[in-house]
Every structure is written in structure tokens, then in C-alpha cells.
């Protein structure tokens, strides 16, 4: 299997190198998406299926679509101009030395890393956590504070974007590709099915709120880009959208406070009820992640034009 790993490593290096070194922004973004897919395969090889699912949906799909949408909004002069790398030939020697130095130091540091691991600790706590799959148990119960803060970061990102400008209407893709909106609508039930499957599977196998939210987010972005989700731009639905965006964080906070009331420690869930709490948080977090990923594409605050 070393050959497969070698090929994957070479592919990752090649796509990353083409993304960063060759001229042309469009080509760079396309290479970044290919890099995301290669990374997803590497996660599978490293036995990290949860990370692979999230990377395939977010790293390859959503980030690439975000970048391409943003490039499409730029004026043509900005899109085509590549900054002249006239300084490069002069600085190529110090840069090479720097690269080699950083690489060598990092490789030495990685090889010398101690590997303590928390395998046993997690295994002993797993029966009390309310989930059978270790990663889900960690994300939603054992280290739930991390996830709470992460949802807060996402909500802060949405708030920042909304405070910058008004939403940019989606490009009229249906004019160039008449079949695309229909295809997106036909595919959406499939996205919903996969979303429910991952969400349900999350408590006992790889899956859970993050891959599920990322997947439905990717499907939603497809609908958004084809102009099939008009309600998100309308003023009447703005309040509902805000509540839905905040639902994941609110439920997380309620859970943390409930833990404080019941066991005396913040987010200390009693083992008897932990399973129900985990399912509730999982559903709310997945929905919030889906909607937040979709609102990233608006690049601004919707519902103010009327």
C-alpha cells in the first residue's frame, strides 16, 4: 500500500504546487479543489473517515465554490491580473534555503513527537457519554465546549459578513445552463437522504452533525447558485433565518446550562440523559451548520433591498 500512499503524496504536492506557483487565479482555485479531494483520500488512508467526509464536502466542494463565486463577482481586470513575480528570480536562493530549513526542522520535529494518545481515557468514558462513536462522543459531549466555541466562531463569521455589505444576488446561471436548476432540484432529495443517513449514523459510526451539515450545505449552495432558494433573500424571512442560524448555538448553551443545573459542572451531562441531549444538539447543529455555510455565499446581509 506504500505505492498508493506515495502516489497520493505526489498528487497532493503537485496540486498544491500548481495552486500556489502557476499563474492564473481560476487554475489555482481548480487545483485547490483537486487538492481537497486528494486530501480526503489521504484521510481515508490514515483511518480518519470522519475527517475524510468533512474534507470532501467542505475542503473540496464548499471552499472551491465560495472562491469561484467570489472570482466571478470581481471585475475582469482583477480576475486576470497576476501580480508580476519579478522579484522572484532575485530572491529564489533565500526562498529555497528558507523552504529547506522549514521542511527539515518540521520533519525532524514530527518524527520526534511523543505519542501519548488518549485512547484508553476515551474508551473508559465512552459508555457514559451517550454515543457509541468516539468522535461524535468527543465533539458533542466530552469536549463539547470546543464545538460550542466553534459554532460561535461560525456565527461570528456570519455576523461579520452581514455587517459588511448587502447580499450579492446569485449569478444567473440558468440563463447559460437551462438544465441546471432542474438538475439541482432533482438532486436535492438525494442530498436530504444522505444528510439524514449521516445524522442518524453519527451516534454509532463515522458521520454525525459535521459531515451531514457540510453535505446538505453543499446541496443547498447548488440550489442557491441556481436561484432556487428565493426566500433567503426576502425580508419577510429574515427573522426566521436569524433564529435558525442561531439555533445550534442556543441549544448548545441550553445544554451547557442544563448540565450546570443537574450536575454542578458546566456542560456536565448526566450519563442517563446524555443520549437524548446528543441527538437534540446533533440535529440543531447540523441544521445551523447547513444554513451558515449557505449564508456564506450571500457575501452580505440579505433582505434589505426592498
Amino acid at each position, binding site marked *: *500500500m*506504500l505505492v498508493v*500512499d506515495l502516489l497520493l*503524496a505526489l498528487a*497532493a504536492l503537485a496540486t*498544491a504546487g500548481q495552486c*500556489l506557483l502557476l499563474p492564473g487565479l481560476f487554475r*489555482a482555485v481548480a487545483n*485547490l479543489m483537486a*487538492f481537497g479531494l486528494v*486530501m480526503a483520500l*489521504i*484521510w481515508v*488512508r*490514515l*483511518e*480518519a473517515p*470522519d475527517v475524510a467526509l468533512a*474534507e470532501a464536502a467542505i*475542503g473540496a466542494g*464548499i*471552499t472551491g465554490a*465560495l*472562491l469561484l463565486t*467570489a*472570482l466571478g*463577482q470581481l*471585475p475582469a481586470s482583477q480576475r486576470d491580473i497576476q*501580480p508580476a513575480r519579478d*522579484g522572484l528570480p532575485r530572491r529564489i536562493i533565500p*526562498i529555497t534555503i*528558507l*523552504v*529547506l530549513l*522549514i*521542511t527539515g526542522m*518540521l520533519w525532524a520535529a*514530527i*518524527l520526534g*513527537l511523543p*505519542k501519548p*494518545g*488518549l*485512547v484508553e481515557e476515551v474508551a473508559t468514558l465512552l459508555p457514559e457519554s451517550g454515543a457509541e462513536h468516539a*468522535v461524535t*462522543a*468527543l*465533539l458533542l459531549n466530552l*469536549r463539547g465546549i*470546543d464545538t460550542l466555541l*466553534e459554532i460561535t*466562531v461560525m456565527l461570528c*463569521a456570519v455576523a461579520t*459578513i452581514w455587517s*459588511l455589505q448587502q447580499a450579492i444576488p446569485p449569478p444567473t446561471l440558468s440563463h447559460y445552463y437551462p438544465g441546471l436548476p432542474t438538475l439541482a432540484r432533482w438532486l436535492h432529495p438525494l442530498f436530504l437522504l444522505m444528510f439524514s443517513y449521516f445524522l442518524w449514523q453519527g451516534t454509532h459510526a463515522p458521520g454525525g452533525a*459535521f459531515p451531514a451539515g*457540510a453535505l446538505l450545505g453543499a446541496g443547498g449552495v447548488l440550489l442557491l447558485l441556481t436561484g432556487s432558494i428565493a426566500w433567503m433573500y426576502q425580508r419577510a424571512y429574515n427573522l426566521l433565518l436569524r433564529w435558525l442560524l442561531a439555533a445550534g448555538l442556543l441549544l448548545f448553551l441550553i445544554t451547557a446550562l442544563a448540565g450546570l443545573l443537574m450536575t454542578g459542572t458546566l456542560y456536565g451531562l448526566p450519563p442517563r440523559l446524555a443520549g437524548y441531549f446528543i441527538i437534540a444538539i446533533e440535529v440543531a447543529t447540523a441544521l445551523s451548520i447547513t444554513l451558515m455555510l449557505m449564508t*456564506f455565499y450571500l*457575501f*452580505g446581509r440579505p433582505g434589505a433591498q426592498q
Partner: protein
Amino acid sequence: MRLIFADTALTSETLFALLAALLMALSLVSVFTTRHLIRRLLALNILSSAVFLLMVLTARTTDGIDPVPHALVLTGIVVSVSTTAVVLALYLRRYRMKPPC
């Protein structure tokens, strides 16, 4: 050179560790030398992928797979897409202002 790496067999883990180090070096240099903001954003994305690769590598212990770094990487992926979205929105605002600043 042989002395330093004499006890290091070429396994998948050393290979991916080397890949992570190379990716990190490449993207760090790009972050510092590229002038185009979007190119820098791409370099940041690749840098975060390299860091995630390192963290997942540390998860492979002799006792089995440590789920803690996996959970942290999942969190990190979502945070990095949030960063990308905010930077892109800032960038778009810069060019949609009249006159562009």
C-alpha cells in the same frame, strides 16, 4: 545524512509527515511572498490542511486510533472555511466600493 535518518524506515507515516512538512514550507513561503490576496488565502487553506495532516498523524498511536485529534481537525476544517468566507467577503467589499479603496 545516513546517520540522522538511519533508524527511520520509509513507512506511510514518515511519508505523510514529509508531505505535511513540504506542504507547510511551500504554503508558508507563499503566504509571505505572494502579493495577490486571494493567492494568499489559497496558501492559508493549504497551510491549514498541512497542520491537520500533522494532527491526524499524531492520532495513530500503538494503542489504536486516538479520536481526540480527529475531533479537533473536524472543528478546524469548519473554522477554516469560516475564515475563507470572511476574507472573501472583505475582499469583494473592497472592489465593490466606489471608488475602490
